C-alpha cells in the first residue's frame, strides 16, 4: 500500500505552472471545503463525495480560475453547484420557500425577538456561552438550506458579504437578509435549548 500521498509528491498538472499552483492554492483549502460540504449535506459520506467531485471539477477548470479572486470562495462555489445539482437529481427540488429572502435586512437586524424575550433574565445573552458546540451544529443543520449556506459561509468560514454573494449567485442585499434571518432563527433555536437545559429560566413571573 502506498504511503499517504503528499501534495508535493503528486503535483497534479506537473506539466505546467498552472497545475503546480493548483497544489499550492486549492489543495490547502480541503478542510474548509470538507466542512462546508458537511454542513450542506449533513452526512460524512456525502461530504467526502462532494469534496472529491469539487476538486476534480476545480482541477479540470483550473484554467478558468481567475487569479486574484479568493480560491476558497471559488471552491465553495463549485461545491455548492455540485451539491445542488445532485440534490435536484435525487429529490425533485423541494422548493424551499424563501418568501422572506427579499425582506429588508435592516429590519431583520433591528428586530431581535430572542433578545426581547430573554431581556429580563439574561439581557446580555450570557446563555450563549453555556451552549455547547454540538447544539450549535445541530441548530445550524436545521436551518433552511439557503439560510444555512449564508450563515456557514459568513460565521464559520469568514467570507465577506461580497464573497458569499458570488458563491451563492445572489445580490449582496439578499445575502444580508438570508444571513440575518438565519441568525435570528438560530438564536430562537439556541434559546429553546437554553431553556430546556435550564441555562436560563422561563421568566414567566415577575
Amino acid at each position, binding site marked *: 500500500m502506498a504511503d499517504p500521498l503528499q501534495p508535493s509528491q503528486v503535483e497534479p498538472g*506537473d506539466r505546467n505552472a498552472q497545475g503546480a499552483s493548483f497544489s499550492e492554492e486549492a489543495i490547502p483549502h480541503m478542510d474548509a471545503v470538507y466542512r462546508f460540504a458537511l454542513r450542506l449535506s449533513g452526512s460524512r459520506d456525502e461530504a467526502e463525495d462532494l469534496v472529491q467531485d469539487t476538486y476534480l471539477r476545480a*482541477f479540470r477548470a483550473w484554467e478558468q480560475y481567475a487569479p486574484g479572486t479568493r480560491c476558497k470562495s471559488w471552491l465553495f462555489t463549485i461545491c455548492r453547484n455540485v451539491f445542488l445539482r445532485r440534490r435536484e437529481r435525487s429529490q425533485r427540488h423541494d422548493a424551499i420557500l424563501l418568501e422572506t429572502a427579499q425582506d429588508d435586512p435592516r429590519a431583520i437586524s433591528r428586530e431581535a425577538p430572542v433578545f426581547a424575550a430573554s431581556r429580563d433574565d439574561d439581557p446580555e445573552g450570557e446563555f450563549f456561552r453555556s451552549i455547547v458546540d454540538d447544539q450549535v451544529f445541530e441548530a445550524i443543520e436545521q436551518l433552511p438550506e439557503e439560510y444555512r449556506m449564508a450563515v456557514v459561509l459568513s460565521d464559520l468560514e469568514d467570507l465577506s458579504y461580497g464573497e458569499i454573494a458570488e458563491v451563492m449567485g445572489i445580490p449582496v442585499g439578499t445575502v444580508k437578509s438570508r444571513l440575518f434571518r438565519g441568525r435570528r432563527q438560530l438564536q430562537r433555536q439556541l434559546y429553546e435549548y437554553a431553556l430546556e437545559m435550564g441555562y436560563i429560566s422561563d421568566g414567566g413571573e415577575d
Partner: protein
Amino acid sequence: MSFFESLKRLFGGSGRDGRSDSTDASGSSAPSGGTAVAMIPCEEASARLFEYLDGELDGVSEEEVRRHLEVCKLCYPRVQFEKHFLEALRRSRNGGRASDALREQVLRSLAEDDARD
C-alpha cells in the same frame, strides 16, 4: 431591567431625523467636542448592527454606529447579546477536517485525471 427602562426602550429612538432622540432616551449626552458626525437614533444603530459587527460598513456609516454604541446605555446589552451569539457560532467552527484517507483519495483521482489527457 426596570419597567421604566423598558418604557424608554419602547419609546426611545423612534425619531428618524438623525437627531438626538436616542441619546435623550439613554440618558447620555453626545460626546463633547462637537463633531461633524450626527448622532443616530437607537433604531438606526440596531438596523446596522449586524453589518457593523461583521465589519461591512463603510467609513462614515461605521463611525456613526460606533459613536452611538459608545455612549448609549440602552444599546449596550443588545450589542453584548449579539456578540455572545456570534462568538458561540465561531466557537463551533472546528467541526471536522478532511481525513487523510480523503486527502489521499482526492490527490490520487487528480493524478489519474491528469494522466488521462
